[in-house]
């Protein structure tokens, strides 16, 4: 028995779909949307509060906050997408492999999953940034490489249960090759958790990236990311609230949207 979603819930869900879509569209069409450059300084107009000419105000260098916010969306979204692609690829591949082949490869992969699950990822990320340098590429890589174990575990469990079904035995007895069974018969049946992990992962990656950038170890100025905008705005919280408010809000509503959609999908797919 499925509970029908109420009108309020539907509205919430639609807005949750729209928020990241709008931000991504704005990021792609950034130069068309804002006439200001995200790097153009105008020292005459420092700390201008939100007004009709600068709808989100200007920062300590007189740069337009709205323009920076949109351009920062490019970086944050790109980092999140690449990180999620990496982690979903690793997670799905290892989960499929472990679940299907079993044996020592399986126990090795399970151990690897356990190792990553019980490491405080943020410390690991700081180590990587410290030794490999804070660059957008390194951030994408390290978020991707550290966030796959949850998915791998799910996919593995799913593969194990799917492999016992009759149609897999049927495929085997028809003499289909392993690759055909894995990719044609098993993979489509484990895609649901993969899809959910993609959506939830985007939210998670945005949060982590912004956290690292906030500490000054992620995206480096003058390039804008929501995290480093918040970080440089914190000094002026008492006098110019708009510097930290808008980027904080951007992270919050995007992550919230991804989490709501992800959770909804999870329930739709029956976990």
């Amino acid at each position: 028995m499925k509970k029908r979603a109420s009108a309020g819930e539907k509205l919430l869900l639609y807005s949750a779909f729209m928020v990241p879509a709008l931000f991504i569209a704005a990021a792609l069409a950034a130069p068309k949307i804002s006439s200001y450059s995200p790097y153009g300084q105008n020292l005459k107009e420092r700390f201008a509060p939100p007004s009709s000419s600068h709808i989100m105000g200007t920062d300590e260098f007189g740069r337009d906050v709205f323009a920076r916010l949109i351009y920062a969306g490019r970086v944050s979204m790109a980092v999140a997408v690449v990180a999620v692609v990496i982690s979903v690829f690793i997670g799905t591949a290892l989960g499929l492999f472990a679940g299907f082949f079993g044996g020592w490869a399986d126990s090795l992969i399970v151990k690897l999953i356990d190792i990553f699950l019980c490491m405080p990822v943020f410390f690991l990320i700081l180590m990587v940034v410290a030794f490999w340098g804070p660059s957008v590429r390194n951030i994408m890589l390290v978020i991707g490489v550290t966030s796959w174990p949850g998915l791998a575990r799910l996919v593995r469990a799913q593969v194990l249960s799917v492999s016992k079904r009759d149609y897999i035995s049927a495929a085997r007895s028809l003499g289909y090759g392993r690759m055909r069974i894995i990719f044609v018969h098993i993979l489509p049946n484990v895609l649901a958790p993969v899809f959910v992990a993609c959506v939830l992962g985007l939210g998670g990656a945005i949060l982590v990236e912004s956290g690292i950038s906030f500490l000054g170890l992620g995206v480096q100025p003058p390039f804008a990311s929501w995290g480093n905008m918040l970080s440089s705005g914190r000094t002026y919280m008492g006098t110019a609230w708009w510097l930290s408010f808008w980027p904080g809000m951007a992270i919050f509503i995007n992550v919230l949207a991804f989490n709501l959609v992800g959770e909804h999908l999870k329930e739709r797919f029956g976990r």
Partner: protein
Amino acid sequence: MLRYILRRLVSYIPLLIGITLISFLIMRLSPGGPELMSGFGSADSDPEVREKIVRVYGLDRPLHEQYLKWLGNIVTLDFGVSFQDGRSVSKKIMERLPATILLNVCSLFFIFLLAVPAGVYSAAKPGSFFDRAVTILVFAGFSVPAYWLALIFMDYFGVRLGILPISGMVSSGWDYFGPFRKTADVAWHLILPVFISAFTGLASLSRYVRAEMKEVLAMDFITAARARGVSEGDVIWKHAFRNALLPLATLIGLMLPSIIGGGVIFETIFSWPGVGRLMYQAVMARDYPLIMGNGVIVAVLTLAGNFIADVSYAYIDPRIRYK
């Protein structure tokens, strides 16, 4: 029980090896990493110096040999000395540990205090106003950038209202306070960081309790209990909750890494004198031995926390011991 503990301990050995190996590889395979560790500058410095470093630190030996040698050092807690003040890395970390443990234990306590009843009540009355309100709050806490929330609270409660301290663990002159005032002062400083940490870390536990309770409440023995006329409160707390509670111990183990990892940001924002802030300071100062030591020790301690969670799970639920 003892046999179970021993078996668990053995199963942690590969995890320990994995964690140390990953840390070692991050350092060793980074461009110029080992030279950085030696404190003599990067690879592009004087070739003669470089050659000396390579020889002294055994960088020309095979990787596995280097790893074993390094592992031998860290087993005796020898992480070298800090670049900043020449003090032993492990000593510096040990000094900071109590503050981190205090903060995390308090956060965990409040997460349980809030998440368990919230999850149980939500599951008892799904779709109710309470359930919806809790769901919204939990999602908000899960999605909000913790440091942003921390900044807003610091600005409001610390700066505008001036009623809560916003940095450090103790007020100035703490050493001269009486024992009661000392405790109160620390508790005072704990309020903001613990609140933020608990609020943003609430989600996994409360969602979990809610899902688990819903599942248990749908079982036959619950219907049977209701049919016997057991009061609703007893059905929920005595019959259902006890069954939903069991796997909680494992969940703590899974929550630990993210709570401790998130500590880097809290501790930095609130100037909390713990290992998270130490890590941040070490990265900022390019204090490589301290970075390595800190990363490894925190990972191993998280593992120890996991182990405690495992053992307490087996203590609560004896069936686990025989699996």
